C-alpha cells in the first residue's frame, strides 16, 4: 500500500516539475481501460511501441472519445483490425508514404490531431526528436512511434506472445496473450498480461486459468493480470 502511494507522490511531483519547465499543463488523454494499468497517455508525450496492435490500442482511447488520429508512414495499416480495436475510422487519416518529408508531415498533423502514430525511418537524430517533442508539448499532442524513437517518455514492448485457437493444421487464430512492459526512464518497468484482441471465448477459457475482468467490453483487450 505504501508503495503505491509513494509512486503516486512521485508521479505528482514529476508532473509539477514538468509544469514548471514547460509552462503548459499536461493533461491526461483518454487511454484504453485495458492499458490503464500500464500506461496513461499524456499530452505532449511521445511513446514508443514495437507492435501495431499496441499502437491501435493506444489510438482507440482518444479515438473513441471523439478525437482525430493520424497515422504517418504505415502503408500496411489494417483498417479492419483498427475498427475492431475500437478506432473510429471516420476520424482517422493516413499518410502512408510521406517519404523524405515525414517530419514536416508529422509536425503539420501534430498541429491539428491530438494523436499521431508514426513509423519513423531508421536512425532518427536526437535533435529531430527534441524539435518534434517541443511541438508536441506546445500543441498538446501525443506521438506514438512504431519503432525506435530517441527521448521517448514511455517505451512499451511486447514479449512472450502466445496464440490460442491454432494447432498443427487445425483451428484458427483466436486470441493472443502478450506481456506488455512499460519502461519509463530509469523507473522499474511495469508489466501486464493482455489479450489481443479481447479475451478468448468461453470454449478456450479453460486453457487460461486467469481471471478476466467482466465489465470490459468484449472488443477491447482485457487485462488479465498486472504485476
Amino acid at each position, binding site marked *: 500500500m505504501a508503495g503505491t502511494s509513494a509512486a503516486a507522490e512521485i508521479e505528482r511531483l514529476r508532473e509539477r516539475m514538468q509544469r514548471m519547465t514547460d509552462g503548459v499543463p499536461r493533461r491526461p488523454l483518454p487511454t484504453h481501460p485495458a492499458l490503464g494499468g500500464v500506461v496513461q497517455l499524456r499530452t505532449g508525450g511521445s511513446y514508443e511501441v514495437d507492435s501495431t496492435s499496441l499502437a491501435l490500442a493506444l489510438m482507440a482511447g482518444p479515438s473513441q472519445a471523439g478525437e482525430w488520429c493520424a497515422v504517418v508512414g504505415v502503408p500496411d495499416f489494417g483498417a479492419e*483490425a483498427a475498427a*475492431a480495436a475500437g478506432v473510429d*475510422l471516420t476520424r482517422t487519416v493516413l499518410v502512408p508514404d510521406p517519404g523524405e518529408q515525414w517530419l514536416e508531415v508529422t509536425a503539420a498533423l501534430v498541429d491539428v490531431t491530438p494523436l499521431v502514430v508514426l513509423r519513423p525511418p531508421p536512425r532518427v537524430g536526437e535533435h529531430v526528436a527534441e524539435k518534434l517533442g517541443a511541438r508536441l508539448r506546445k500543441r498538446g499532442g501525443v506521438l506514438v512511434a512504431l519503432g525506435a524513437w530517441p527521448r521517448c517518455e514511455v517505451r512499451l514492448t511486447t514479449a512472450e506472445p502466445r496464440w490460442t485457437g491454432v494447432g498443427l493444421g*487445425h483451428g484458427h*487464430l483466436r486470441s493472443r496473450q502478450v506481456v506488455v512492459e512499460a519502461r519509463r526512464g530509469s523507473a522499474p518497468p511495469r508489466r501486464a498480461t493482455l489479450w489481443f484482441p479481447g479475451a478468448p471465448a468461453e470454449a478456450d477459457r479453460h486453457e487460461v486459468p486467469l481471471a478476466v475482468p467482466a465489465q470490459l467490453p468484449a472488443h477491447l483487450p482485457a487485462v488479465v493480470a498486472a504485476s
Partner: protein
Amino acid sequence: MRALVVWCPDWPVVAALAEETLPPKQPAAVFSANVVQAVNGPARDFGVRRGMRRRDAQARCPEIAVLAANPDRDARAFEDVLAVLEQLRPGIAPLRPGLVALRSPGRFYGGEAEAAAVVAERLVQHGVWDCRVGIADELFTAEQAARRAQPQDSVVVPAGGSVPFLRDLPVEVLEDPETVGLLKRLGLRSLGQLGDLRAGDVLARFGRQVAWVHRVVSGQGERLLAERTPPPDLEVHVDFEPPLDSAETICFSARRTADAFVERLARQGLVCTELLVQAEADGVVASSRRWLHPRWFAAADVVDRLHWQLQGSLRAGEVRAPVERVRFVPETVVPDSVHADGLWGGTDERVQRGIARVQGMLGHEAVLVPVLQGGRAPADRQAMVPWGERPTGLRPTGLPRPGSIPPPAPARVLADPWPAALVEPGGRPVVVDERGAVRGEPARFRPSADEPWQPVAAWTGPWPVEELWWEGTPRRVARFQVVGVDGRAWLMTYDQAAAESVWWTEAGYD
C-alpha cells in the same frame, strides 16, 4: 392544349449500349436478377423476349450483350434527350426514362407533323436513332400514337379524333398483364368494347386505373402535363487574357470565380456535392475531371480541386499550352438544408486546414481515409479513399464470403505481398494440390526475404479461394495462418500461378 409525346423504345438498352460504347445495332438486353428487363430490336429478331431467363436468351442469341439494369443510368442518359427537347420548347414533362411529353407547338413549325419531324431530326443529330412521336388531344392517346409510329416518324391523331383512334386498339396496350388477362377472359378484346360499358360498372369491377382509361376512351379524358422548370444555369467560367501557364497563378485568378460559383448556388438554396472542373487550352478542353466532396464544396475547396487537377495535368503533360479558360460545372447539387451544419460541431475546420496543408506538400492522393468493405483477402476488405473524396464502388460488407479468414483481423495488411517461403522438413516447398489438400508438413518458414528462417510453431489452413474465373483471369489461391516459434503470426498465401514465388505473405498479426 394538344400533347406531343416522344418515345425512345428500349431506352434501358440504348442507354446501356451508349455507356458501354457498343454499336447501337448490337443485339443486347438489360438483365436484372438474370431475367430480361428490356431488349432491343436486333435481339428481339432472335426471339429474345422480356421476362426470359438469361440462359434462354443466350441460347437463342449467343452474341447478345448482357447488360446490367441501372435505373440511374437510364435517367441520366435521358437527361441529355430532355435538354435537347428543352431547347426546342420549354415546359417539358418527363414521364419516365424513354418517354417524355411536351405541349404540341401547334403551327409554329408549320404544322404538327412538321414539328414532329423537327423533334426527330434534333434527336437523331444527338445520336438517338430510334425516336417516335405521337401527337393527340391528351397524353394517353399521344403515347399510344407514338407507340404506333415508325422509327423517326410520327403519328398525328387529329383534334377530336382520339375516340375513334383508341376504340380500335387492343386491350394489350394497358400493359398490366393481370388486367389484360382479366379483360380478355371476359371477352373484351379492344378498348372500344371496354368503352361501351357503363362507367360505374368499370370502376366497380376493374378499379381506378381501368376506369381512367375508360374515361379517356369515352372522350372525357384530359390530363394536364406536370411540366418541369428548366434547371437554372449554374455553370461559371473565367477567361484569362493573356493565357496563364502556372497552376498557382490560375488558381489565384480563379479564386473570385469560385466565390461567385458557390454564392450563385447559395442564392438558389443549393450546395454542390459533385463538381466538374475543366481547363481549356488552345480552344480545346485539355483537362477535365469530376470531383466528389464528402460534404459540399466551399469556395476554398473548389480552388483546391482546381489546383490539384492543374498540378496533375501539367505534370502528366495533358495541358501543353497556357490555359485560357477554366470552367466549374456543378454535376450534382442538393438543397443546402441537407448539408447544414448542426448548431454544435460538424467537421472540424482546423483538422480540414491541417490536412489540406499536408496535401499541399505531398499531393492530394497522399492523405487517405480508410474504409471497410466486403472481400476475402485482408487487402480486399479495406479501401483507401483520398481525403476529400467520397468512396465509390465499395463492395457491401456483411455478406457471407466463403473462404474468408475468420476474425481477428490482421493488424498489418501489406499493400504489396512479400515473396515468402514455407518448406517441409526436407526443404521442399509445401504445396497445395488441385483438390485443395496440403502436401507436406510445414516445418520452417520465412515471411520475407529479409527475415530469417524459423521453425513453424503452429499452422492452420488452407482456406482455398477460387475467384475471378468469371472474368477470364482466374485466380486460385489457398491461405494459411502460420505462427513462428517467436510467437508472431502471419497470413501466408499459396499461389500456384504466381511467377516469382508460390508462397506470399499477405498480412501480419503484429
